[in-house]
């Protein structure tokens, strides 16, 4: 009896434990099924609960501090290569003979470009997230001065007389002209939207500045991206070359004779219902050419082929003999070699009309593409040795420089920059994010529509059930880990689900990510995409007077007429800090006739100033328009009682919103 009792207890315990295990298993299964929208996910808790740790010891253990080489410059004698380590916040000095890193200079946050003075002794490095340029004495390897710029300084160019430094302010969309004698900014010129690159023509008479985002265009009209021409003599903008239906013009180069300037670009198909990838229906990639003759004709040609795409062209360099151009396709891990004489012949024999036709032609590239040279992950900056014999390629997600012979067009060696040897899960995810291998025929990467993991400023016709319906404004991916659900219709409860099977069915249209890949991608998206500091509108946390007034309006509970605003219609109800979203679905009266009836995900508002246009379908070109044009019924917050200056204050406050971390422990926001 006693024995039996014991046995009974043991058995009972076992049953309970196994029941527990079974139920825990069951609960986990349910949870995982819900979060991933599949039912065969291996119940691997690490996937979502370890790799996505943003801080703490675990995060430290599973992550690494990579260098991520980005842009480069070479010393006038060719002996040194200067490499911007974008994630390492450093300028690396590489000896091109020994292939060794010989120096490392700490620079400001998120450096972008480096320019070397012709004497080889001084470098200037733009710190994109610090709004300044460092002057570096290369003999001492020391930062000797800091030059204030506009917001988001990117590429640097010396004026032909070397007296001025032109700094492309990528965030404030300007070019700062800095007097190198007084070290002060003398003026800012308006450039295109999100300009990045600047280069002077060989004769020094003008500078070309390319930009990435489209100019603000009316709703449902094609993007137009500007190349700004600055006259060196007057230091004023002389002309603005418009590239229809193109964007992301990352870099530009002149031929040595100056007969052409060539920029990289992408030709998106955002206005066409996204019903297929085949035949270039989503994205095409290529170059923009400005002829010096022919009244400065603007031409666009693709570097893609009918069944093979080469996404995210980034940098372009042209050999000193003017015969070849090299383009880094950062989404395809390929360098394309272009025969410039073939381009010249094509241009000479073609009318503008023909060239316009060619701008959508996937076969024409056979005429001028000499070769595709494979590279390591995510090739970005390119630079040629002064003699033109070697091409250096910054393999960003490889922490490596490839050296390619420009004569036999083969990779002759690679230079290891001594980054971490381990490839973390998040790093693998970042490679996946940047690479188009998971899209049918390599047509685009995640990065293509989410450049810098942000958004591309376009509205896509995502064609739900029917075509021409449910337009979707691309959303930023910065710091979105804690802002579920995802998609404007909020259908995805997790990033895991967002990037799962359905994603491949309607977007990439090729084989879905496997679970390891999904783990990696999610880890990168959750931990690796940060908001830049809001240096333009809120550098220190001290609000301006207008922002303070705007904050009061944001948190107000009564209208100007003293009427109480219902809680559901107060700004802070749906948009509470730290993310300024309550993560709920709601209707603010912004659905249009072409939208299926649905509730919309309340978007987070951190760094909202960086994401025009606004609303789920991008109808509002500016923040003001949210209320002046699309809130007639006061459904998107009560605003129609406000005076114009109050609206301005509210907008100023919204522009001040920055990364969520600033609001998490601020008692004022709780």
């Amino acid at each position, binding site marked *: 009896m006693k024995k039996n009792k014991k046995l009974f207890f043991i058995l009972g315990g076992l049953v309970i434990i196994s029941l527990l295990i079974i139920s825990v298993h069951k609960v986990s299964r349910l949870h995982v099924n819900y979060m991933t929208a599949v039912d065969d996910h291996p119940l691997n808790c690490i996937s979502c609960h370890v790799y996505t740790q943003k801080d703490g010891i675990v995060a430290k253990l599973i992550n690494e501090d990579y260098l991520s080489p980005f842009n480069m410059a070479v010393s006038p004698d060719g002996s040194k290569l200067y490499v911007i380590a974008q994630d390492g916040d450093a300028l690396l000095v590489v000896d091109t003979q020994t292939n060794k890193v010989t120096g490392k200079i700490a620079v400001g946050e998120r450096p972008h470009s480096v320019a070397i003075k012709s004497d080889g002794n001084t470098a200037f490095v733009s710190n994109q997230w610090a709004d300044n340029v460092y002057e570096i004495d290369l003999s001492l390897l020391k930062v000797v001065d800091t030059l204030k710029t506009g917001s988001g300084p990117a590429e640097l160019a010396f004026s032909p007389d070397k007296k001025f430094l032109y700094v492309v302010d990528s965030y404030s969309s300007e070019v700062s002209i800095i007097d190198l004698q007084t070290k002060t900014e003398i003026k800012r010129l308006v450039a295109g939207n999100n300009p990045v690159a600047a280069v002077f023509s060989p004769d020094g008479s003008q500078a070309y500045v390319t930009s990435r985002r489209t100019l603000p265009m009316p709703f*449902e009209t*094609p*993007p137009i991206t500007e190349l700004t021409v600055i006259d060196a003599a007057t230091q004023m903008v002389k002309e603005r070359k418009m590239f229809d*239906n193109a964007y992301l013009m990352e870099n530009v180069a002149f031929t040595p004779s100056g007969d052409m300037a060539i920029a990289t670009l992408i*030709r*998106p*198909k*955002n*206005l*066409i*219902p996204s*019903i*297929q990838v*085949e*035949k*270039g*229906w989503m994205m*095409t990639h290529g170059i923009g050419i400005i002829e010096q003759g022919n009244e400065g004709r603007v031409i666009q040609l*693709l570097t893609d*082929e*009918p*069944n*093979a795409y080469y996404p995210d062209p980034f940098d372009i360099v042209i050999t000193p003999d003017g015969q070849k151009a090299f383009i880094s396709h950062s989404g395809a891990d390929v360098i394309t070699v272009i025969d410039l004489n073939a381009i010249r012949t094509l241009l000479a024999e073609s*009318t503008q*009309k*023909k060239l316009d*036709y060619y701008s*959508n*032609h*996937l*076969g024409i590239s*056979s005429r001028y593409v000499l070769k595709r040279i494979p590279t390591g992950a995510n090739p970005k900056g390119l630079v040629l040795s002064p003699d033109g014999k070697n091409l250096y390629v910054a393999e960003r997600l490889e922490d490596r420089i490839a050296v390619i012979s420009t004569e036999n067009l083969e990779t002759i060696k690679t230079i290891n920059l001594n980054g971490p040897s381990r490839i973390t899960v998040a790093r693998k995810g970042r490679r996946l994010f940047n690479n188009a291998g998971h899209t*049918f*025929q390599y047509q685009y990467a995640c990065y293509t529509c989410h450049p810098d993991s942000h958004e591309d400023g376009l509205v896509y*016709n995502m*064609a739900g059930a*029917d*075509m*021409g319906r449910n337009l979707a404004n691309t959303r930023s991916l910065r710091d979105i880990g804690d802002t579920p659900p995802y998609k404007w219709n909020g259908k995805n409860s997790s990033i895991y689900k967002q990037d799962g*099977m359905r994603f*491949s*069915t*309607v977007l990439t*249209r*090729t*084989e*879905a990510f496997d679970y390891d890949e999904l783990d990696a991608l999610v880890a990168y998206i959750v931990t690796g995409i940060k908001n830049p500091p809001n240096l333009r509108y809120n550098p220190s946390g001290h609000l301006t007077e207008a922002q303070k007034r705007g904050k009061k309006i944001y948190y107000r509970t009564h209208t100007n007429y003293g009427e109480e605003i219902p809680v559901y219609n107060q700004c802070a109800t749906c948009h509470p800090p730290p993310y300024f979203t309550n993560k709920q679905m709601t209707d603010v009266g912004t659905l249009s006739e072409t939208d299926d009836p649905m509730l919309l995900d309340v978007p987070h508002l951190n760094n909202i100033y960086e994401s025009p246009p606004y609303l789920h379908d991008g109808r509002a070109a500016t923040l003001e328009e949210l209320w002046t044009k699309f809130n007639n019924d006061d459904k998107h917050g009560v605003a129609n009682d406000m005076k114009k200056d109050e609206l301005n204050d509210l907008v100023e406050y919204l522009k001040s919103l920055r990364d969520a971390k600033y609001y998490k422990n601020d008692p004022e926001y709780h």
Partner: protein
Amino acid sequence: MNPMKIIFRIGYIVAIGLASLCLNSCRNQSLEGMVVFTRVPAGNFDIHGKAIAHKYKGAQIVAINPDKPGVPEIILTPDFYSACSPDISYDAKHLLFTAQQKENDSWQVWEMNLENKTSKKITHFEESCYGPAYLPGGRLVFSRQMPETGTGPVHALYTMDLDGSNVSQITFQPHFDYTTTVLHDGRILMLTKQLFPQPGDMMYMAIRPNGTKTELFYKGPGSSILNNQVYETGDGFVYFIEWENGNPNSGDIISINQNRPLFTKVNLTSGITGSFYSVLPRQSGGMLVSYRPSDAGPVGLYSFSVEDKSLGAPIYKQPGYYVIEPVLVEAFTRPKNLPDDTNPEKSTGLLLCQDINVIAQPDDAGLSDNAKATKVEVLGIDKSMGIVPVEDDGSFYLKVIADTPIRFQTLDKDGNILYGPSGWIWIRPFERRGCVGCHQDPELAPNNVVPLSVKKPPVSIPVEDSYETEQSPTIKSLNKNEKE
């Protein structure tokens, strides 16, 4: 039960077991690295390559070791009256083929376990099934002869799970459709030839395994004849045999680039007399080809160097037999498993044409107004399905009854036919297909504009009432011809 009987029975079972073990060990000879091909009795072979489906009486699937000439071949299909079209699985452990067990049987698809050489019948249609190929995700694709409906010997592509379940027809046109290979990007490369209303030319078309987004891949000059066996290599080349301009005596090895298949054709054997029937690139480089030096003599298996464009010595050659369809028993990279965006519960799909008036290589003048189409007519097999006016930008947007063959012709403002009828197309349930124009350059990407037509709901095809009443001149003449 009688103990004796029990003992006898046990003995019987053991004996059978032992026998089968023995047999198995004999059969379990590894085929890794061997070449498998179809060996056709000379008299039964279609020497001009015109037959799309391979269904040679008395043919056998045979394996040899190409590196060990002289070692006798292994006949893999001794139990079948005829067997053709071997296709190796990605792990090289299984083989699909089409066969008839007895002389008057229909041809069906079988799968052989290459370890134990046992075969399992997969398809069970009344009509014959040919040309099987493995698809990722445990499925296969094959060509099925369709019941006669007056449009000729139509063959359609089907897919199914390897256990024979989940059968799905994926092509719907009065054509002879036949699988040649599955491309690395996951699409099926289909050899196809129009049968109705008049015979068309052979061409290769790429098609997703769910039957959507069919597009022209390659077509030879004139009435070139194309082989039903195609290979894509890891470096992006696609090889096949083409009888240029239908010349029956000169099957040549052709290479095209998968990146730009329409305009990268290279004839590798134009300098070699005789005729080629099959080509098999090897991962190690080089090729195995089926070749016949002259009008007389058998078709043998040869090695071929792409670089030198020269033939090597024959590897296998046997009088009275023609050797075709070589495949390597060697694991290879699985093609992409493309997702399926169709919805079998829907009965329609959508079709968007961006600009009916886009033409290839425009001259500077552009189209005159008179030459511009303002309407498009949708034609069914034997009736017009409606005339739809196009928008000012030349676009039209249709909701088409699914899995039904249709053709288009463009009409000017007075109803005169400008272009067409086009080739047949069909739309899968819930498929959403786009085309830039009706007769544009196939390498043209669409212009980035919002087509006016998608600002409205799609026009349903067939247009109500037009099905019977609005008979187009084309259909009328068609029907008349048929009656005659």
